[in-house]
């Protein structure tokens, strides 16, 4: 019986990996501010029905007489419109909150589905190599060689309008990035000795792929997914602005901008401007968080 000759563990620092990652992330103030903004936006989006002064989709709450009021104006019944109203008397603040909610919902759902799809594709391609890899990656290449807008427009023209159709369009545009990214990371990990050890232990292949390879190749995807949420928001806004995205009854930020576009030159800027600002803040904040995440994850990847 071997005498226990090893005493103690070298990890005397109490800090867990997550806490360490947070500290590193927080070293840049801009990143912390951006993260706070993202959290705030998510909070507002989730709580929109409770926070918004009115429900902009409920026609009974609207008063057409209150249309095109500038910010901080009061309506006929005394209600304060912080950001003004649009051409149908909708409170802009409420519309933005609901629009944000929809934009985030669509983007996050689309990103999640694309992530799952792309991950499975990429990791299977990386593990098996050979023809499977060649076939799947050619599909990815074809996908990526078309501009995202073009694919989305074509798909929506075929599928028609609706939130679920927009999600499908976004997924079909995004999945290829994840596939390619995780394939790259997995190809590097696949040669490592712990994968050889798993094969030596005669573990079933699916187990090696999903329990050993995937968790270790996944890290770069966190960064990609974060930034892609921002892309998805922008893409969805673009599609809605062009009128092929979400239906008019449930406007997202893009549609709000489109609605108010015609009034810009006549001086009623707030109908387009404030949804634009909200969109800008959302995209920039998410991008900043993603950038900082990329910096934090990099040296740790070089374990």
């Amino acid at each position: 019986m071997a005498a226990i000759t090893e005493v103690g563990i070298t990890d005397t620092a109490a800090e867990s990996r997550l806490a360490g990652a947070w500290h590193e992330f927080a070293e840049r103030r801009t990143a912390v501010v951006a993260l706070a903004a993202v959290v705030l936006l998510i909070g507002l989006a989730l709580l929109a029905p409770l926070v918004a002064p009115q429900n902009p989709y409920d026609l009974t709450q609207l008063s057409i007489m209150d249309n095109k009021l500038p910010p901080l104006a009061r309506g006929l019944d005394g209600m304060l419109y912080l950001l003004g109203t649009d051409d149908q008397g909708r409170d802009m603040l409420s519309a933005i909150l609901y629009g944000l909610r929809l934009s985030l919902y669509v983007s996050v759902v689309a990103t999640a589905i694309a992530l799952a799809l792309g991950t499975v594709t990429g990791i299977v391609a990386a593990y098996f190599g050979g023809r499977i890899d060649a076939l799947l990656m050619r599909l990815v290449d074809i996908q990526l060689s078309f501009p995202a807008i073009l694919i989305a427009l074509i798909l929506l023209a075929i599928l028609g309008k609706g939130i679920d159709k927009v999600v499908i369009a976004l997924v079909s545009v995004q999945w290829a990035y994840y596939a390619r990214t995780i394939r790259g990371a997995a190809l590097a990990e696949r040669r490592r000795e712990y994968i050889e050890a798993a094969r030596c232990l005669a573990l079933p292949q699916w187990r090696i792929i999903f329990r050993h390879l995937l968790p270790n190749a996944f890290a770069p995807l966190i960064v990609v997914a974060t930034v892609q949420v921002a892309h998805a928001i922008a893409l969805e806004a673009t599609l809605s602005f062009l009128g092929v995205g979400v239906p008019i009854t449930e406007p997202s930020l893009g549609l709000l901008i489109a609605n108010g576009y015609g009034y810009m030159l006549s001086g009623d800027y707030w109908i387009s401007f404030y949804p634009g600002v909200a969109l800008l803040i959302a995209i920039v904040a998410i991008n900043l968080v993603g950038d900082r995440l990329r910096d934090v994850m990099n040296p740790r990847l070089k374990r």
Partner: protein
Amino acid sequence: MPAPVLAVTDLSTSFFTRNGAVRAVNGVSFAVARGEVLGLVGESGSGKTVTGFSILGLVDPPGRIVGGSIRFLGEELAGASDERLRSLRGASIAMIFQDPMMTLNPVLRIDTQMIEAITAHEKVSHRAARARARAALAAVGIASPDERLAAYPHQFSGGMRQRVAIAIALLHRPALLVADEPTTALDVTIQSQILAEVQDLCAESGTALIWITHDLAVVAGLADRVAVMYAGRIVEEGPVDAVLAQPLHPYTRGLIGSVPSRNARGAPLNQIPGMAPSPADLPPGCAFAPRCPRADVVCAGPLGMTGHPGERAARCWHPYVSEAAR
């Protein structure tokens, strides 16, 4: 006796991390004379590499030299300006690393790099510099140096790259060469070649050599003197013969005893129990006490060198010979 080329006195280097200060080098003193080879031996975490880096002023934040003096040819290096250190590095003091790619730029040709190294410290014509580079390559045993000059590092094997790194280090005939495990990653036959070349070059040019390694056998054949490091301190020093034949410190003795050639074939190897402490978490007094067969209460107290520091000494309350070799 002529003044030593390098005299390190009480050197301490610490790293200031988020989790506190880590004392990588803790009061290290040694000297190297002209033409002498000093072997600096230790395992991982002993602080030998950080000592080498400290001498050259290459310790990056969050680490810095926190105390002691490094006198090179009479001049104080600890705390010297970046400019002064830069002018010394490559010309008077040179370093070679375990990975030659730390010296060689992968996107530049060998001749470009060598000529750059020459003209950085001396005003010579391009042609003269190239001739010197060629001669330096030949001196380290590289056949057909003209061809090799025109090549890129990735076209060389590991041993070749290390030779080129040595050639670059010796271009200006430095007074001191610090070698940090340069042959650890190389094959035995290639290591032999490089050891032979370094031996010749240093003997010929009178360069003082500090050879940092964990391999006692290499030190046995190469060095004049040896200093053994453990947990940031020198625990034994002396002439190679004396230290290897009659080690004073229990750690040195344990290290020598655990080498397979010192044990009967097939018998269990003499092993040092436990493992080296993390530099962030050192026990008070002697850092080796938890693993030492001779430790007692005294060992938790402050520790000095017994014997003749600078010649033959050990940092131990219970060295194996009651009087250090005179």
